[in-house]
């Protein structure tokens, strides 16, 4: 039962990562268009999501799915948080903006936290990969 729940959380975190990534990129493109800035402004949004996506795809192909249930559940929760923030920025009509469709101030206020969550998860997932690799080396030796 726990293995099944773990698998569900493992795939849910990837799904929510993709949703959060697409909405965050959409907001970044809209902001780039609104402020007439160049494509380089999107990089700080793109990089942490991309690194996490690579790490999770790495896990999928290297069959290291026996992740800790705690780590999978927490990662899912953090991507749900980022999804809630990005969905509210784009779709919540009550977050009003005077000169554009999206209130970029609302997203900017929480962008720091989103980045902190993403970079903490990168650190956590890299640590987890190292730990799992050492565990496998110990089992085989």
């Amino acid at each position, binding site marked *: 039962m726990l293995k099944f729940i773990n698998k569900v959380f493992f795939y849910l975190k990837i799904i929510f990562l993709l949703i959060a990534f697409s909405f965050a990129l959409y907001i970044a493109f809209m902001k780039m268009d609104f402020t007439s800035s160049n494509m380089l402004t999107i990089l700080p949004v793109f990089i942490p999501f991309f690194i996490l996506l690579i790490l999770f795809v790495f896990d999928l192909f290297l069959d290291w799915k026996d992740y*800790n249930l705690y780590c999978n559940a927490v990662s899912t*929760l*953090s991507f749900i948080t980022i999804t809630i923030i990005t969905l509210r920025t784009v779709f919540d009509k*009550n977050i009003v903006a*005077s000169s554009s469709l999206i*209130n970029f*101030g609302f997203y900017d206020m*929480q962008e720091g936290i989103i980045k902190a969550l993403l970079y903490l*998860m990168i650190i956590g997932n890299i640590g987890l990969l190292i730990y799992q690799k050492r565990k496998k080396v110990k089992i085989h030796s």
Partner: protein
Amino acid sequence: MKRVNDEYLKKIICVVFGLVFVISMYFVIINIRHYEALSQKVTVSDADTSYIKFKENISHVENKLNHYSDSKGTSLQRTLNVLKNGGVFHLLSHTELSYYDLYKLNDYFMNNVINDCWVSNLKGLNNNKTNDQLVNALINNSTYLDNHFINNSLTLYDSYSENSIQNDYEMILNNYLSFSDVLLSIIES
């Protein structure tokens, strides 16, 4: 560099994910609270005296406009159309108004009623200094409300109280009512 012991590595991973959990939970909770605060609605009552008076003023203006056929009449008619057709009556005929509806009403008041009607049409027709002062006060109210709505959208940590939306609605309705009083006084002068 000394290799980090497996046990320490496991603890570091637990602490990192623990931090992620705490931060995520906190932001989920405050976003939910903020969403609930902004989702409040205000009930529009047909028995609301300001709303009744506003509708009466508009119908008085409509009756009196029949006596004007010159350029003054055209300007006054344009103003009346803006007051009636901008969705104001449509919005005010709903039984409930959301935060977004109030923002739209105030935005319409600032951009269409004040900027188009007063500045372009009515200011030249006005001889009464009191009307000028009243409209200036309405501009200040409207600007305050605009900043207030945008600040509430951005403020996650202070809750938007139940009385606030009612006060904002009354302020917007009084702005429209006061402007209709100004329009009526210009017609009657």
